[in-house]
């Protein structure tokens, strides 16, 4: 008894923070590799980009000058920044609902165990997800080309258009074309998310409904959708965030053109930071400021996502 109370006392009080850390020194030892990686690849870049955003610096020269929040002040008057920011979210709004709805419809169809080729179809739909963006971009540029591109060929043959349409070259159409490519590439992953959600509907519910003579569409509307609806929040937010990270696709197809009409935030940041075309000079500090603002916007979305995930988990726990 005396020994036990002694141990309890020692554990509960009388130990300073340093003593407690020293007592758990082995645990901290094991944490070091993870913390190093986290620090080097996540924490440090965040701090660094905020620091760079307060500098007037090309990012290449030795010369840099601390200018406080002047970069931010300049951004607020930069029309290109506004347009890119708006375009990023427009792109998100154009892709996410499509991806979600098409993904869900495909998932419901492919969730049917009795559909013999379901796995084949799943694999086919998932194929674009695992294909490299650069490859898809090259193929799409060729496919959509107004000169001998097969898609224009098809449109002309079927008399849907009278002359070739430059889907990636027209400022009015380019963003929507890219949205289409994006949805095509990423619907597979949304499909997988939805399939996971559909796994939470027990087989007995379908069977009970079958015995009750409930029709398939009624089962989907009244049983399946209400049960998987909470997942929509999470899937939607994941898709939204991935729709904002669209740099590789656009850089590999249009580089933000023509006439900046497909320049989303990430392309804008890249262009201001590294000035890939002639006649510009790189402004890493300024680009960092844009990056910080965009990053904070995404972080706000992410926080929403975390809250939503927690809600869904809680709801699931209640449903058990």
């Amino acid at each position, binding site marked *: 008894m005396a020994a036990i109370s002694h141990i309890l006392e020692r554990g509960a009080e009388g130990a300073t923070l340093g003593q407690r850390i020293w007592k758990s020194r082995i645990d901290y030892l094991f944490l070091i590799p993870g913390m190093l990686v986290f620090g080097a690849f996540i924490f440090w870049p965040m701090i660094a980009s905020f620091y760079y955003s307060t500098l007037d610096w090309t990012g290449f020269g030795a010369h840099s000058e601390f200018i406080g929040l002047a970069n931010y002040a300049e951004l607020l008057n930069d029309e290109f920044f506004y347009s890119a920011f708006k375009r990023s979210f427009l792109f998100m709004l154009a892709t996410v609902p499509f991806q979600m709805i098409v993904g869900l419809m495909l998932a419901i169809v492919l969730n049917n165990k009795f559909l013999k080729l379901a796995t084949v179809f799943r694999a086919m739909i998932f194929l674009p997800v695992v294909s490299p963006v650069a490859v898809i971009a090259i193929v799409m540029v060729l496919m959509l080309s107004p000169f001998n591109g097969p898609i224009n060929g098809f449109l002309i043959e079927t008399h849907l258009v009278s002359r070739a349409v430059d889907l990636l070259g027209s400022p009015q159409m380019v963003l929507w074309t890219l949205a289409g490519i994006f949805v095509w590439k990423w619907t597979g992953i949304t499909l997988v998310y939805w399939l996971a959600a559909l796994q939470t509907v*027990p087989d*007995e*519910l379908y*069977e*009970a*409904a*079958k*015995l*009750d*003579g*409930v*029709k398939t569409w*009624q089962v989907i509307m*009244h*049983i399946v959708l*209400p*049960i998987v609806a909470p997942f929509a929040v999470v899937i939607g937010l994941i898709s939204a965030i991935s729709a904002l990270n669209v740099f590789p696709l656009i850089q590999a197809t249009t580089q933000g053109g023509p006439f900046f009409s497909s320049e989303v935030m990430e392309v804008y940041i890249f262009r201001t930071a590294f000035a890939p075309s002639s006649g510009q000079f790189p402004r890493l500090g300024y680009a960092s400021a844009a990056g910080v603002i965009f990053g904070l916007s995404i972080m706000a979305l992410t926080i929403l996502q975390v809250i939503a995930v927690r809600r869904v988990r809680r709801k699931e726990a*209640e*449903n*058990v």
Partner: protein
Amino acid sequence: MSGVKLTNVKKSYGAVEVIRGVDIVIEEGEFCVFVGPSGCGKSTLLRMIAGLEEISAGTIAIGDRRVNDLDPSQRGTAMVFQTYALYPHMTVERNMGFGLLMNGVAKSEVKAKVDKAAKILQIETLLNRKPRQLSGGQRQRVAIGRAIVRDPDVFLFDEPLSNLDAELRVATRLEIAKLHGQLQGATMVYVTHDQVEAMTLADKIVVLRDGRVEQIGAPMELYEDPDNIFVAGFIGSPKMNFVEVKGDKLPDGRPLRLSGSQSNAVATLGVRADALERAGPGAGTIAGEVSVVERLGDAEFVHFRTPWGQELVARFPPGAAVRVRDSLQFALTGKVHFFDAEGRVLRDVAMAGNPVAAEA
């Protein structure tokens, strides 16, 4: 209301045959229990009646309709699932009325039916709750209510008590028995692996093993007069004692005097715990040393080890002064069953007089 008739019903998944030709007649209004160890095909058979599994061969008829190719909803059956299968996002009331509402039955009519079923099951106060707010027993009632609302010819229960705790299981079992009385003429088919449930609920028990019917009969028929060693061992608690018999002798060489034309074929002797009685020193057929005494209050189960090392059990009246390591003698006073080498019962064999008395 109508009965169910299964004629040479078979089911195979590819090359694996899980139901190997089953014939069962369930009369109208009967409470029929399919019982057997896990994997015997009892649930599959029930699901075949419901229409959730296809029938590979044979016929299933409900009433005078052949239902083999009929949609599950057209068969006039309602099923209660082991996991309840309640729609988690709907209230109890909507859960019960959902099927009817989806089939275009008027709201007022559905409400009347739901209220009536809720009254029978005494769940009127739960109608606005969601399944997650209910206990296991309440959920099971709602599931039964959903079946009642449909006013089916045949109720199908798939291990409905398995997810309940022991106490609730006994109480719910009683309620299902009452319900069968209340719903006059309702045919009920009930699947369980628990022979106590089968014995207490059934008008007729179907014992299944490996996709075949071992025996069909009233509970006491199966208990008193099993067709084979499997049924004898499966029905009744504690399990029937089986002793190997070789050339009219017990394993320890004590003689057994048997009468009947097939007495030469006897390979196993079966005796229930309550058919073993304590005999005086040297006066019993079977001897043994007590290993465990289970005192249940109304009876005592005395487990003992025979000279040839087998554990058997005898049922003693309460207050029997028996202690562990006592050496006891047992007489075969009650009904004794004899089985041949294939496990089939030999009905014309009987004990002839008291062999031990002759020996002494």
